[in-house]
């Protein structure tokens, strides 16, 4: 089952920054790029689970706050030579609000 959930007004997510969204035991990082594009990924670094939402956003990447792996916000993949990937979620912005698409089976896989 898929559903879109309302997260927050766009202006409550800092540009080149992120907010943490918690849903049923999992944490999702919702990121805003300089050009207001919004991306959402599982808030766990593929390296050692660092909270990606706390990193530095640049271009369309996030530098993990723990050991500086660079993770693509577009596909959740770690930049070479590191390997690993974190799950991504669809997002949209409507009337100034950010929405996140949650799919139940996907969330099940990620539950802690």
């Amino acid at each position: 089952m898929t559903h879109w959930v309302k997260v927050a007004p766009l202006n409550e997510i800092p540009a080149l920054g992120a907010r943490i969204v918690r849903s049923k035991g999992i944490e999702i990082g919702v990121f805003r790029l300089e050009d207001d594009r919004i991306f959402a990924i599982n808030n766990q670094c593929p390296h050692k689970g660092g909270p990606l939402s706390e990193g530095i956003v640049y271009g369309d990447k996030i530098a993990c706050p723990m050991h500086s792996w660079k993770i693509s916000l577009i596909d959740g993949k770690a930049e070479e030579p590191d390997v690993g990937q974190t799950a991504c979620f669809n997002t949209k912005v409507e009337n100034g609000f950010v929405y996140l698409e949650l799919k139940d089976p996907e969330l099940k896989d990620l539950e802690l």
Partner: protein
Amino acid sequence: MKLVVVGNGMAGMRTVEELLKIAPELYDITVFGDEPYPNYNRIMLSPVLANEQTVDDIILNTREWYAEHNITLYTNARINKIDRKNRVVYTEDGTSAEYDRLLLATGSKPFMLPIPGKDLEGVIGYRDIKDTNEMIATAKTHKHAVVIGGGLLGLEAANGLKIQGMEVTVVHKNEWLLEKQLDKTAGKMLQKNLEAKGLNFLLQKNTELLIGDTPDANGKCRVKTARFTDGLEIAADLVVMAIGIRPNFALAESAGIYCNKGIVVNDTMQTYDPRIYAVGECVAHRGISYGLVAPLFEMAKVCATHLANFGIGLYKGSVTSTKLKVTGIDLFSAGDFTGDSDTEEIVLHDAVGGIYKKLVIKNDKIIGGVLYGDTTDGSWYFQMLRDGKAIHEIRDHLMFGQDSLGNTGHQGQNKAAAMNNEMEVCGCNGVCKGTIVKAIQDQGLFTIDDVKKQTKAGSSCGSCVGLVEQILASTLGGGYAPPSTSKAICGCSDKNHEEVRAEIRAHKYLNIPDAMKGMAWRTPNGCATCRPALNYYLLSSWPHEAVDDPQSRFINERVHANIQKDGTFSVIPRMYGGVTTPDQLRKIADVADKYAVPMVKVTGGQRIDLLGVKKEDLMGMWKDLDMPSGYAYAKGIRTVKTCVGSEFCRFGTQNSTQMGIDIEKAFDHMWAPHKVKFAVSGCPRNCAESGIKDVGIIGVDSGWEIYVGGNGGIKTEAAQFLCKVKGHDEVLEYSGAFIQIYREEARYLDRTVHWIERVGLEYVKQRILEDSEGRKAAYERLLFALQGVVDPWAERVNNRDKHKEFETISV
């Protein structure tokens, strides 16, 4: 556009790699190489010959790599004509390719002595895989090898042939080996060591001719004997000529491109035909042709920026250094190691221990040197040489090397040579020496950055970078050039820290977007390396005017707490001078209870740490604590440690506790290039450990001594004496001025010790002690910058709705 590359070797392909990094879409690229292989690491031919590597190991770019990058590769394809008018190149068999830009990277050819017999079977140069294979094959069937030339290449060939099982004689016309790299003493030491490995030497001999055997069935004649001008004859089934190389510019010359002992290029690597560029051993740049990879890589970088139409970057020539890649032999040389009447020498010679070091010094700078037996400090000397660093302050211990004492986290090792392959080099990421060597060899790594990226060694706390550098230097030989310290701030710009700061001042940039635009940053919003640095430079250059950008700060500074491994945070309130009260302690205890803090710990900085706090609890906790932030997370003022001092201690001469409190209050909220720690002790017993702090103050009967540039972290450094002052206000003024000049001039992420290492203590003394007006002004600037700054915790507590990022959204 179409780019054609002639020469599929190290310089050409490095240029293509650099180009792909910065302009991946600009060209359709076609590469012609007359060898049957894709690009390989030529310098690793010596380890191949010495049975340490295989040909497969040394391929740098596989055929798949070319395909992945849409590069058309022709191997076994020799270009023999360039039609510049129609912009087409042709191979011998008629294949052609059109170009908009042409890159010539045809390398060089071994120079063959023009003596009778040079064309006999078994007489070869040492340049490529074919030559290497021929040597390995010959060793299986023949006995006697003669290597003509006792230079780097010749000795590496001789060593390899010996390992392949041949009897090897090295013939050299000079009085000692490697005369271009070593002085006589070191050259003789080397000869002795190589003789011990079983090599024979004939010095001061000129080869007159090579005599052949009776022709075989195909009428081919193999070399049998070598004769010298003094009449001596020796058996020779294989003769390797390694007496030098000649730039390979015949193709360019035949196309009418101006050549003079090489393809002549300007500082942008452009030939006299503006559509044609050249890099590598085939060029003559300012009259010099280089035969080592480090300069070729510098050329490649510059050339790529011009091919990419960026129009930046100039190649201005290189100083090179050399190392012989013969396992078990350690030698290093760089620059002018002979000297003349205007130079001085420092020599250390331990004949029994097999160690020889010589540095040549001119006008207080190292201009060259030779190290034999112990090359640990080669890169360090070489870096000082390249940076033109003044040495008078370290002259006394220069010969004893870069004091690596106290460098922790890798079994106390500081000499890579003494380590075996299983020993750990990088204590943070668990990387062993063997892993690093293998990565350098197999993946063709050439710089510290490459090694950091591929192996993670040295990428965390950095304390092992020196070891990694030694491993790199000994694995690559002369192929390694230590980076100059004035390097670009990061990959987003070519400007170094000093240039960035100067432009921020000159153009009065007040925010990051303007600064990036004004300085033509390559990336839309920088990266995690440059943004924090820019943010600091803006704030420190234009206090109260520049806009702080929290998103360009590391998480700790963004939320004013240290992030922990599990994503929780720690809260360390200020306790000025390490002094607390029962009231404060009660408050801390209550807060710890209320928020179920998992651990309460006394820190190494004389205060209390509440560890494991959830991000969403930070605000509430700060409110309940009602204490100022301890900035334990900041590149800024951390702690001022104190001892009990004259108020209580029977030895105390000064009230160090109060002094510490006053300093911590005066400089509270101060940002800096890195963290800044003070300590104040009441007497020379120094219970506050003032000797390892950025600023250490020691009370003595007649006043206060001020020490600067100490560091108790990764590399323990004792603070150096700056001056002695009489009163309390002077302590604040002198130490404040010192810190302000550090804030204005050090590079971001330099601790005070690193900054002083670069500018010299003399410079600091001149600014603080001799220039009293300047000192006062600097102190005033610091006070101005700190005027009216509010505590960040209180600010957030009072403006909760402006700081939504502390709240988690639940859905």
